[in-house]
Structure formats: structure tokens, C-alpha cells
């Protein structure tokens, strides 16, 4: 038992399950190793002695983590300020569908209740995500209103090809055909633009939309 007592159990992780794959280092941000099965083995004395090894746990300082985040946000803001972000893409929510778009794209909305007419410009309010080559802004679930400007032009309103709805009940002499065409609206995405600084919390959000 002498060898076991030498190991400072409160500071390190003793786990046979982790020793098995020595290439993995344990860190708190890795969700795999912070689960229940880890705590189960954390202070376990059942580990086979020959497998015992010290596993160092690295804990990130919250202040340090915050500073790192600040630096990244600053870099993103610098890139946007100097207009070096390149082509942006966005995921917009439109008629219950989430579409990835980038400027000059065409999207088609298949809906009979989509009101905009040809040549209308639309601003897409529901933006779920915006990304460039070097960064991605992810909304939870939507990005702050006003942060991103995604604008599109309606270029075509047409009917789809004739679709067929066919219904038959066997042995009951029931056959129905229904033919229908739905409205397709073609939209050209004109621009995706980040209007405000990233990572800045405003006192009041969405007030401009409440007024207009």
C-alpha cells in the first residue's frame, strides 16, 4: 500500500480509464473528461496499481480566458474596421427554412404567402450566423438585431411546375388527382455587412425595431 499513499490524490486524477490512452491530456474544457464517469474514477482506489499514472489537470483562469476572448474580439473588430474580412456568409431564417447565403447568391422561396414583389429590396432580420474566412459569429439563436445587414432583391416570381397529388384507396374505387402549382420567389442576395462592433453589449437591444 505504500506506493498508493505517495500519490497526492486531491490534486491529480487517478484513473485507469484515462491511462489507457496516454495521448489524451486532461483539460477542464474537454467535456468528455468532466463527465460523471471521470468523477467516478477520480478518487478511486480500485485502479490496478501497475496502470496508475499521474494525469495533470490544467485549469484555465477565468480572467485569462476572458482576456483571450477580448483579444479575439478585438482582432475581429480590427478586421472589419479595415475592411479585410473578405467575403462573408450568413445563415438566414426565411419562411421556416435556414439558408446559407453569400453575396450574389440566388435563393428560391417556395411559398404561396410570400408577399414581396419584383424589384423589392428585403432586409433579412433573422440572421442566425455570420462568418468570414477567419471568424464566425454565432447567434443564440439569432444575432443581435442591427448587427448584420443582409439585403436581397426579388428578381422573379413564378409558379412551379405542376405537381401532382395522387390518392388511391385500393379496392374502394377511390382515386383522386389534385394538380397544383406553388409560388416560387427568386431572391438575389446583394450584400452581407457587419454594421456594428462585435462583442459590445448595448443597454437596450431591438428598440429601433419596436419604434419602426
Amino acid at each position: 500500500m505504500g506506493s498508493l499513499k505517495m500519490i497526492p490524490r486531491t490534486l491529480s486524477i487517478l484513473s485507469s480509464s484515462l491511462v489507457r490512452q496516454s495521448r489524451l491530456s486532461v483539460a477542464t474544457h474537454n467535456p468528455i473528461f468532466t463527465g460523471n464517469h471521470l468523477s467516478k474514477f477520480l478518487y478511486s482506489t480500485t485502479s490496478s496499481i501497475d496502470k496508475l499514472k499521474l494525469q495533470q489537470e490544467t485549469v484555465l483562469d477565468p480572467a485569462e480566458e476572458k482576456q483571450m476572448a477580448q483579444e479575439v474580439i478585438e482582432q475581429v473588430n480590427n478586421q472589419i474596421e479595415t475592411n479585410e474580412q473578405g467575403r462573408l456568409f450568413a445563415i438566414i431564417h426565411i419562411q421556416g427554412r435556414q439558408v446559407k447565403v453569400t453575396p450574389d447568391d440566388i435563393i428560391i422561396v417556395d411559398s404561396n404567402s410570400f408577399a414581396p414583389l419584383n424589384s423589392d429590396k428585403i432586409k433579412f432580420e433573422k440572421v442566425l450566423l455570420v462568418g468570414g474566412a477567419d471568424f464566425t459569429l454565432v447567434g443564440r439563436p439569432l444575432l443581435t438585431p442591427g448587427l448584420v445587414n443582409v439585403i436581397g432583391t426579388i428578381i422573379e416570381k413564378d409558379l412551379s411546375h405542376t405537381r401532382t397529388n395522387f390518392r388511391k384507396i385500393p379496392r374502394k374505387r377511390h382515386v383522386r388527382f389534385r394538380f397544383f402549382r406553388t409560388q416560387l420567389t427568386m431572391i438575389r442576395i446583394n450584400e452581407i455587412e457587419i454594421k456594428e462592433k462585435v462583442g459590445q453589449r448595448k443597454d437596450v437591444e431591438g428598440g429601433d425595431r419596436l419604434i419602426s
Partner: protein
Amino acid sequence: MSKTHLYLRTGFPRAPLANGLGRYMCQVKRITIKFCKSHGSSRGVRDFIETDMIDFVKQNPEFVLYLKPRRHHSPHLIAEYLNGEKFHMSFHNFNREEISKWVNLMKTRAGAPIMAYRKLGHTDNPSIQGVWSPFANQDTSLNVTSFPNEKLSRKFQTEPTATELLLEMFKKQQLEDSEANESKEEESK
């Protein structure tokens, strides 16, 4: 004989002449309506001409609307588009509302032949952050690793197997037994 006209045409959405990149351009060039001045089947067309046509033409100066009276002919429409396509449609026994609806549709179309779209979008830039591959965001030490690698070929497992648990239980039991023996020996001494 070719049967291509019998099958449903399919395709991918495209906008003619890069429409909408700078500004929107109406794609219809000319709409011609042929009708009869006396026949009942042209009644709706005549109503449309009397009531809606002037407003419709004034609102849409981008294209021209021709009216061609044709004696004892069934009324129909021919729409011609900037991409050279022609679209014919019968207005036989249509009423005024139907006609203004269809004429409006001809105006908002871009002239592509009717087809089933295989996709509801088109992009010239499919990826901005790079196409994903299994090696994206992987450890860079993999670049200098020689394969096959025994360490990497092993199964990724975070929980101990049943065999290992049994072995551990067995070893624990052995340890406890030996401890008990030692204590007994000490007591006996």
C-alpha cells in the same frame, strides 16, 4: 421521334443576365394578346381591355403590350422574354380577374422554361472557410506521423471495459486479502 417534350424538364435555378446584381430588370419584352371583338370566348379579354389594361400599361413602362383583334379566333397570349423564349397561353373563356392574374404572372417571370428545380438556390462561392475534410482541425502532429500507427489505430474509449473492471475488482480483492493477512500476522506477533 424525340420524346423529350413528354418528360418533365428539370434544372437548377439561374437568373438571366445577372439580374438583380446591380438593379432589377423586368425580363419580359413584349406581351401580345389576340382576341375576337364579337365572340363570347373573348369576353373576359374585352373586359380586361376596357377596365384594367390602361392602368396596367401605365404601371409597367418596361415592356410593350400589343392587342391584336382577330375575327372569330380564340383569345390567347404570347409573352416574349429577353432571353428569346416565347410563352403561349390560351385565354379561352377566362374572366377578367383570371386574365389580369396571368398577365401579371407573365410580367414577373424571367422567361425560363417551366421546369422542376433540383435545388432551391444557386451560389458561385460554395465555401468561404474552406471545404471540410476529415483532416480539418486535426492535430498538426499528424503531418509527421507515419502510418499505420498502432497508437492511433486503437479504439477511442473513455470508459473501462467490463474485463478491465473485473480485473480491477479482482486486484482490489487480492490487495484487501493481503492487507488482512498482514494485519493478522501483526496481531499474531
